[in-house]
């Protein structure tokens, strides 16, 4: 057994001391790093997790900006410098170096100073190689902090805020969905495409709606050819029969194109009878009838419904 020459601590006393020391160290770390301290208290349920109100300036203006520009490196999956910016609570917790927001003092808030630095500065955020924030975006952050970095201040209460620009959302192309929508008509479309090459096509890659352009066939496209489109009529949204040989005999087929939005009938032999037959087309927004025998009398009712009419001047 080991030689012992002086007084010793008992094991329980030692381990109690260690436990106390550990707790003291933990407490010191919480004080030295408030972000860590608040995170621990919030995790333990001893401190409420602050949340921004849905209509607040933070929720409407600041949060979307942070999510768009910052959380790639300061979000759930990555926390550069220990900083998360994906919720109001995380923003206020700050980084491992301390708070990044000083309410009311934008100039001394790191969140603002970093995004205000010139892109060439090593400390600039976003880092070099990434698109800097716009002046308006920087202003939004500055105003939010200057107004107290509030979680509840209404979006409209911040004076001088740049106008909110809503981004245009372009839906994702879903080829599978388009294929499903096209399936019921696919055979009929293929049949018409074989018989009238180049006349019928889909409106876009993601659409099952159809576009018809018979103008290049010229006089070889007449009422009989237009009748071939009858099975597809309800799915045609744009049609160009200009310079073709169609007549009023096609009026009923045209009237069956209930989804039609734009129709071109320039330089054809149609008359007021065809124009009158178009009256039930509720989606029609534009009609071209130059070089035809149509009169203003028949066009008037369509014009009243808001359809843009393009006809010869003397018709008006």
């Amino acid at each position, binding site marked *: 057994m080991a030689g012992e020459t002086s007084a*010793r601590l008992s094991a329980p006393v*030692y381990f109690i001391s260690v436990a106390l020391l550990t707790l003291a160290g933990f407490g010191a770390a919480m004080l030295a790093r408030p972000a860590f301290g608040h995170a621990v208290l919030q995790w333990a349920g001893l401190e409420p997790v602050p949340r921004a109100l849905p209509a607040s300036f933070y929720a409407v203006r600041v949060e979307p900006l942070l999510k768009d520009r910052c959380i790639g*490196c300061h979000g759930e999956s990555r926390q550069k410098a220990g900083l998360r910016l994906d919720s109001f609570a995380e923003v206020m917790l700050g980084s491992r170096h301390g708070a990044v927001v000083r309410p009311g003092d934008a100039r001394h808030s790191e969140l603002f100073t970093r995004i205000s630095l010139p892109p060439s500065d090593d400390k600039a955020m976003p880092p070099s190689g990434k698109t800097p924030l716009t002046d308006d975006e920087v202003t939004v952050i500055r105003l939010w902090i200057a107004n107290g970095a509030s979680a509840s201040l209404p979006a409209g209460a911040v004076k001088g805020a740049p106008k909110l620009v809503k981004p245009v959302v372009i839906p994702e192309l879903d080829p599978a969905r388009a294929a499903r929508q096209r399936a019921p008509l696919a055979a009929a479309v293929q049949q018409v495409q074989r018989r009238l090459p180049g006349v019928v096509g889909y409106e876009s890659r993601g659409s099952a709606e159809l576009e018809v352009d018979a103008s290049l066939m010229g006089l070889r496209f007449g009422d009989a050819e237009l009748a071939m489109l009858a099975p597809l009529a309800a799915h045609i949204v744009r049609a160009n029969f200009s310079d073709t040989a169609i007549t009023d005999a096609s009026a009923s087929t045209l009237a069956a194109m209930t989804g039609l939005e734009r129709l071109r009938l320039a330089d054809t032999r149609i008359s007021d009878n065809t124009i009158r037959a178009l009256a039930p087309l509720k989606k029609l927004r534009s009609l071209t009838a130059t070089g035809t025998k149509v009169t203003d009398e028949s066009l008037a009712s369509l014009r009243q419904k808001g359809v843009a009419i393009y006809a010869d001047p003397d018709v008006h």
Partner: protein
Amino acid sequence: MSIETAHDKKVLVWDLPVRLFHWCVVALVFTSWLSADQGWMTIHLASGLTLLALLLFRLGWGLFGSTTARFSDFLHPPRRVLGYLKSLKDGDRLLYAGHNPAGGLMVMAMILVLLAQALTGLFANDGLHFNGPLALLLPSETSDSITSIHRLIFDAILVLTWCHIVAVGFYLLVKRDNLVLPMLTGRKPHSHMPQGVNLTFTRLTIALLLFFLSAGIATWILFQGASLP
């Protein structure tokens, strides 16, 4: 404060490579933490690669080094570890020249965790301007995941380090056995040695060869990284 009796004969148990390894690891772990915390990533890279070289050396020294440095000397089956811990509790502690079974377990755990930390660091990034030497070999998402693991392992290092310090304090204050001084001088009191133990010490030239080999591997990794596009 001298804990051992003044006339207790001292016996060499820790060779120079083990002692240098121990204190260099202390310094490098601290440097790695500080440099990462402050964003001094070049220093972090240097300390991490040096740590990797030392760990590789220690693995070799655990196979070819002096008696008390060898894994075969301080890695014991769980039954013996439990038996040792029981002897501690009962007050008739079993004596070992080098690491005791519990200490050996701690050493191995520390080596493995530090090795995992050094290896994950090779593939980690700071998301800004710095990539670990081999990070560009992987897709950025994988590098990011490894970076998260790198961060988690640091917490494990903190826990192990605290356990290590608490254990050393336990021996010092409860068992009146100073483990720190021998790790500095290499010698411990004869009265803390088991009976009839015969220690052999491997030549320093072998240690130097092993270290150069390990440092060569770390340097090679660094150059591999430098050659990536």
